[in-house]
C-alpha cells in the first residue's frame, strides 16, 4: 500500500493527532449535572480514581488508544492510500477520440468510464492520453483526478482515424510493467467510412470525382447522391469480390455545390470546391510560332481559357506581368528540362513542379528518350530584371523542336496543362488524401484550416484529421477519413482496472474507522469509557 501524501507528512500527522488527543484527554470535560442524595461514597471513590484533569494522572489509556486508532485511520484515509495489487505497474489510459467515437454517446460513455477508472488507479502510476488526430497527455502521473475531470469536460472526438493501436504499441515498448487501458468501442453503424473528392480522372480542371466508401461489410446500395438537391448518376465499383462496394461519381462540377449521400441511415455531406477556369495570355513580345504551337493545346484543355492581358498565367513574353505566374520557353542548361525561378526557394516547389510536369512517371522516361538525355528540374534565383511574378517556370525550348518529336506525344499537352495549373493554383491535388495516411508525393507541410502545420518537411505528409488542408502554394486538399476509422483494437479493459483496484484501501480504512466509532459509542453508552 502506498500513499499520495509523503511518509513524513503521514508521520507528522499521526504524531500531531496523538499529542492533540492526549491533551484533549487531559482537559476537563463538560459534565452533566446530576443531583444525588449524597456524594459521600463518590468522594471516597474519587480518592482512588480521579476524573481527568490537567494536573492529574492520565487514567484513560483504553479510551485514548481507541480514539487515537479512529483518528489515525481517518488520517490515513485522508492520505489517500493506493492499491498495490499490481505494485510497480504503470497504467496508461488511452481515450479513443477518433471520428467513430462521435457516434451517439460513445465518447461520453468512454469518458465516464475512463474517469472512474482513473480515480481508482494510483495517482503516481497512471497516465491518461488523448488519442485523436494528435496524441496528447490529459493527465500526467501524480496529477489529481480533479484535473482530469475538468480537462475531459471540453473534449470532443476529432475527424481522425483511430490511433489506439499505434499509441498502444508505442506505450508498450516503454517497458514490460506498462498496463494499457483503452477506452472506446467499435462503431456499429457509421454509414460511410470514406467520403471525399479527387481530381477528375477525365482531366477536367473544373470537375472533381466523388468517392464514397461504405463501412466494412455493408453493401453500398443507397440512393444516388444529390448535388444541390438533384440526383447524380454514377458508378458503383466493387472490390474484393463484391464484398466491398465503392461509390464513384465522376466529373462533378467544382462550383461550390453541396453533395449529400445517404448510407446506413445516415446523411453525409460535403461542399465541392470552386474552381475557376485558368485564364492564360501570351505576353508582350512572345514568339508567334510558340503561340501557334500552344494555342491548340490550350484550347483543348477545358480548364484553360485564352484571354488577354491580366490573366492568371502569362505565356512567353519578355516582361512578366501576370498576377500569379509565367511560363516561358528558353534555352535551358544542359540536362535541364525546366528551370524554376521566383519561388523556387519555397520548400517543395521543385517536387511539385516535377509532379506537375509528370516527369517522374512514364512521360518523363518518354521525354528523356526523345531528348536523348536526362531530364531534370532545377531552380535558379531570379535575376534583377525578373519581377512581378511569384512563380515562374522556364521550359527548355528544345521541347518545341519538331525534330525531337515531343510535340506529337500525348505527354506534351499534359506537360503544358500541369505547368499552367501549378503556376495558377500551386501544387497538384493529391488524388486521395486520408487522415492518418501519408500523402504520396507531398513532402511539404499542409496546413489544416484553422491550425498550423506540424509535420516535418521532406517526409511524406500525413494529415492528422480529416478536413481541408492548404498547401503552401495555396492549393486546397480535402482529407477524408481512413478506411475503417472506427475500428478500435481494444475493448474496455475494466478487468485490468478492477484487478488493480480490488483492494480499495480507503474504503476499508473508512469502514474500520466506522466500526471503531460504533464500538466507542457502545462502550460509552455502557459507561465503560468516559
Amino acid at each position, binding site marked *: 500500500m502506498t500513499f499520495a501524501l509523503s511518509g513524513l507528512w503521514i508521520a507528522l500527522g499521526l504524531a500531531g493527532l496523538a499529542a492533540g488527543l492526549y491533551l484533549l484527554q487531559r482537559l476537563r470535560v463538560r459534565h452533566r449535572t446530576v443531583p444525588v442524595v449524597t456524594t*459521600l461514597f463518590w468522594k471516597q471513590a474519587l480518592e482512588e*480514581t480521579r476524573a*481527568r484533569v490537567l494536573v492529574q494522572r492520565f487514567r484513560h489509556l483504553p479510551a485514548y488508544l481507541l480514539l487515537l486508532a479512529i483518528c489515525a485511520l481517518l488520517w490515513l484515509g485522508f492520505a489517500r492510500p493506493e492499491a498495490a495489487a499490481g505494485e510497480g505497474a504503470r497504467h496508461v489510459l488511452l481515450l479513443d477520440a477518433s471520428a467513430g467515437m462521435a457516434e451517439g454517446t460513445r465518447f461520453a460513455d468512454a469518458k465516464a468510464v475512463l474517469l472512474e477508472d482513473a480515480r481508482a488507479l494510483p495517482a503516481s502510476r497512471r497516465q491518461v492520453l488523448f488519442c485523436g488526430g494528435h496524441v496528447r497527455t490529459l493527465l500526467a502521473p501524480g496529477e489529481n483526478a480533479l484535473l482530469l475531470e475538468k480537462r475531459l469536460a471540453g473534449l470532443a472526438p476529432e475527424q481522425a482515424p483511430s490511433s489506439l493501436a499505434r499509441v498502444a504499441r508505442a506505450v508498450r515498448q516503454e517497458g514490460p510493467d506498462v498496463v494499457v487501458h483503452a477506452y472506446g468501442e467499435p462503431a456499429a453503424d457509421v454509414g460511410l467510412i470514406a467520403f471525399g473528392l479527387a481530381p477528375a480522372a477525365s482531366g477536367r480542371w473544373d470537375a472533381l470525382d466523388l468517392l464514397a466508401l461504405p463501412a466494412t461489410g455493408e453493401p453500398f446500395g443507397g440512393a444516388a447522391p444529390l448535388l444541390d438537391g438533384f440526383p447524380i448518376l454514377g458508378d458503383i465499383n466493387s472490390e474484393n469480390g463484391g464484398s466491398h462496394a465503392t461509390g464513384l461519381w465522376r466529373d462533378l462540377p467544382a462550383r461550390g455545390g453541396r453533395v449529400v449521400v445517404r448510407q446506413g441511415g445516415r446523411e453525409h455531406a460535403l461542399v465541392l470546391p470552386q474552381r475557376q477556369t485558368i485564364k492564360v495570355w501570351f505576353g508582350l513580345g512572345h514568339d508567334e510560332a510558340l503561340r501557334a504551337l500552344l494555342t491548340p493545346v490550350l484550347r483543348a484543355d477545358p480548364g484553360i481559357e485564352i484571354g488577354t492581358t491580366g490573366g492568371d498565367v502569362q505565356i512567353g513574353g519578355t516582361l512578366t506581368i501576370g498576377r500569379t505566374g509565367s511560363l516561358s520557353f528558353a534555352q535551358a542548361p544542359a540536362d535541364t528540362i525546366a528551370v524554376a525561378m521566383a519561388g523556387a526557394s519555397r520548400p517543395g516547389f521543385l517536387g511539385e513542379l516535377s509532379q506537375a510536369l509528370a516527369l517522374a512517371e512514364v512521360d518523363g522516361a518518354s521525354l528523356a528518350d526523345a531528348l536523348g538525355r536526362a531530364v531534370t528540374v532545377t531552380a535558379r534565383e531570379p535575376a534583377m530584371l525578373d519581377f512581378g511574378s511569384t512563380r515562374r517556370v522556364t521550359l527548355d525550348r528544345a521541347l518545341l523542336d519538331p525534330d525531337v518529336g515531343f510535340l506529337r506525344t500525348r505527354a506534351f499537352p499534359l506537360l503544358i496543362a500541369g505547368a499552367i495549373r501549378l503556376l495558377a493554383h500551386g501544387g497538384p491535388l493529391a488524388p486521395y488524401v486520408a487522415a492518418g495516411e501519408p500523402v504520396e508525393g507531398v513532402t511539404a507541410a499542409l496546413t489544416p484550416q484553422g491550425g498550423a502545420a506540424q509535420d516535418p518537411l521532406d517526409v511524406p505528409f500525413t494529415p492528422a484529421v480529416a478536413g481541408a488542408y492548404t498547401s503552401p502554394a495555396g492549393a486546397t486538399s480535402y482529407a477524408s477519413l481512413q478506411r475503417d476509422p472506427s475500428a478500435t483494437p481494444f475493448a474496455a479493459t475494466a478487468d485490468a482496472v478492477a484487478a488493480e483496484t480490488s483492494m480499495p484501501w480507503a474504503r476499508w480504512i473508512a469502514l474500520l474507522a466506522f466500526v471503531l466509532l460504533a464500538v466507542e459509542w457502545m462502550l460509552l453508552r455502557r459507561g465503560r469509557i468516559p
Partner: protein
Amino acid sequence: MATRRIPAQELFDPAFLDSLASLRLVAGRVAPRGRHAEHRSKDLGGGLEFRDYRPYAAGDDLRSIDWNIYRRLGRIFLRLFEEMEDLPLYVLPDVSESAWLEESPRIRAGLRCALAVSAISLNQHDRVGVFPFAEDLRVAVRPRAGKRRVFQMADELAKLEPAGRTDFQASLRTFGHLRMRSGVVAVISDFFDPAGIDAVVDALRRLRHKLLLVQLVRPSDAEPAVQGDVRLVDCETGVGEDVSVTPAVVSAYRQAYATFQDTLGRFAQSRGAGLLRLDVEQPVVPQLAALFEGGRLSV
C-alpha cells in the same frame, strides 16, 4: 415554593393499622418511674407477680409485710412485686433533603415506618414521641400514650417538611439534652451524614436509650445508575463532584458503600440494637414484620 409534604392519606389507612395489630415491641425491663403499662419495670411495686423480699424500713407500707416470715424468723420483711410500666418510644425520623429527593422519596417509606412503630407502641399503651431531625432536632410530638393518638401522630408526620442537611451529631446532642426517660429510640434515616458514617456512629453511641435503627435504602445506593462524565451535586450541601464514571470508579464506589453498610451493621450488633434495612421501593409492613420475629421484637 410549594410545600413538599407527604399527605396523611398516604401514611395512614385502616388496613395499615390492622396489619400492625399483631406486632409487639418487648423490652427486658423498662426504666423505672414510668407510668403503668405492660412492660416489666426495674421498679418494684404493687403488681401481681411476686419478685423478691427486702427488710422493712421505716415508712414502708405495712400491707406489704410478710407476716409468715416474721412469725418464723421474728424479723420483718416486705414482699416485693413486679411493677408494670411503659416503654417510651422516641421516633426520630430523618427529614433532611436527601429523604425528599428522587422520584419516589425515601421520606414516604420512612414516615410510614415511623407511624408503624408508633402504632405498635401506642397499642401497648406506651408513650410515643416524635422528634424529626436534620441539621438539628425538634420536638414534633411530645411523648404521650393512648391508642387514639395514632391519628394525631399521622397528622403530625404529614406536616413534616424538608429541613436541610443531615447532622447526626448536633441532632442527637439536642435529643440528649432533652433528658428523656430511658426508652427506645427509633432512628429512621438513610444515615447519609456529610460528616461520614463514623460521626453518625459516634453520635448514636452516646445515646443512653435502646436503639432501633431503620436504614432507608434503595437498590441504586449499592449500584449507581449514573454513567459518563457527570457532576454529582449533593442535594444537602450543594457541593458538586465531577466524576467520570468508569468501571474503576464504580468499583471504588461499591467498596465505599459496602464499608458504610458494614460500619453501621457492626455498630448495631455491638450495641445490641435492632437494624432494619428498609427498601423504600418495597411495601413497608412486610419488611417491618420480618424484623419482629414471632411478632415480637425485643430491645
